[in-house]
């Protein structure tokens, strides 16, 4: 049996370990101060330190590589524009997540699609895509997960991604989404239930095998 979180660590953190660009807010603060004063090199360093998070979050919410790239670009333009309003005692990561979620929400409205696109170009197959049965199963599973995510409402998807994939607590997610922790927990529970129903064939097969 696989349990969800333990001591604040989420499943994604347990499976994949700390993210390479997961720089502490304190170490980003000098860059933020310099970038705020108009230092382009500092802002570029700030982008290098945080672009992985932004791209990954945008990709998970939008489900499309091109949309995620455009969203990340817009996120950093907004960061540069509003960096003067960022207070040093704030959590930069939460601030960045909030901007990213808002940009993804705007992008979702512009594309007038209820859910994320299911992009087939972003598959990472463990065997290098040789077309074996295992790779086909893996590809099928990836498609199923993305399709299941695409059926969630935007708020449920954002809450689930932030809570289960980005590793934020319910309170942190509530601050990012601008809602109450109880609301976030209800959205996350609903999203997990839907995912469990839609992915049942895959993990039951996986459990059997």
């Amino acid at each position, binding site marked *: 049996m696989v349990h969800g979180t333990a001591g604040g660590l989420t499943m994604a953190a347990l499976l994949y370990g700390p993210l390479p660009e997961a720089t502490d807010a304190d170490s980003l603060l000098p860059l933020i101060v310099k970038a705020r004063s108009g230092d*382009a090199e500092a802002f570029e360093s700030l982008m*290098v330190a945080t672009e992985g998070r932004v*791209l*990954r979050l945008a990709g998970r919410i939008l489900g499309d590589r091109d949309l995620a790239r455009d969203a990340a670009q817009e996120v950093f333009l907004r960061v540069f524009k509003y960096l003067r309003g960022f207070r040093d005692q704030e959590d930069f990561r939460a601030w960045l997540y909030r901007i990213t979620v808002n940009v993804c929400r705007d992008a979702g409205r512009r594309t007038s699609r209820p859910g994320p696109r299911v992009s087939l170009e972003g598959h990472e197959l463990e065997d290098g895509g040789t077309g074996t049965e295992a790779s086909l199963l893996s590809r099928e599973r990836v498609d199923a997960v993305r399709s299941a995510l695409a059926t969630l409402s935007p708020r449920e998807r954002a809450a689930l991604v932030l809570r*289960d994939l980005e590793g934020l607590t319910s309170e942190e997610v509530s601050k990012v989404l601008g809602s109450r922790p109880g609301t976030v*927990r209800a959205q996350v529970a609903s999203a*997990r239930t839907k995912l469990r129903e839609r992915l049942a064939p895959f993990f039951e097969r996986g459990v059997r095998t």
Partner: protein
Amino acid sequence: VTCHAARRLLPLFTGGDLNALKMSAVAGHLAACAACQGEAEAFSAARCLLPLSSLSFGESERAQIRRRVLDEIARRRSDAPPTVAFQLRPRFALAALAGAIVLAASLVSPFFIRSAVEPAAVLPARPIPFPTPALAGERIAEAEALVPDRSTAIPRVLRAKKVPRTLAPASEKSGPAMRFEIQTGNVNVRIIWFTGGNSAGEEPSDPSGDPNDVS
């Protein structure tokens, strides 16, 4: 905890989103109920599949995004006016123009208002000759002193003074001891009013007094 209650809490239980009391209650139920245990494993397995949804972005894509962002920032900086004052330049120009108009109006308007209210106050350029027909001799100079400043204003004063009998008109030899002069707005018109009266042949009570005394 019943199976129904436990299954209702399973989505949050698998994520560790329940408080300690509920977590332990659900865990106790799962230890005793195989069906609910299987359901909890299904939720956990679904969560394990979630990371498969992630897209990976190569370094070249990241570098391209950075370059686009920096280019866009540079373009916006070059397009943007250098200063806030420059940005607000049209407004500053309008404000300066309005200020100049107000200033000019405030400087010019008193002349128009003064001429409209007091047309007689516009004085001739040369000094006003003091009208002296009612006085004679050396008294003229003294009478001229009654006008405080003939070059700037026309006196509109009521003057009453004692007049020696010798200066009184011949038609009122018995006459008046008081003489009132009222200067009108027109410098050439003065109203002179003799009033009161001593008995005929009576000398003024104080012939050496100041003829300009106002009583």
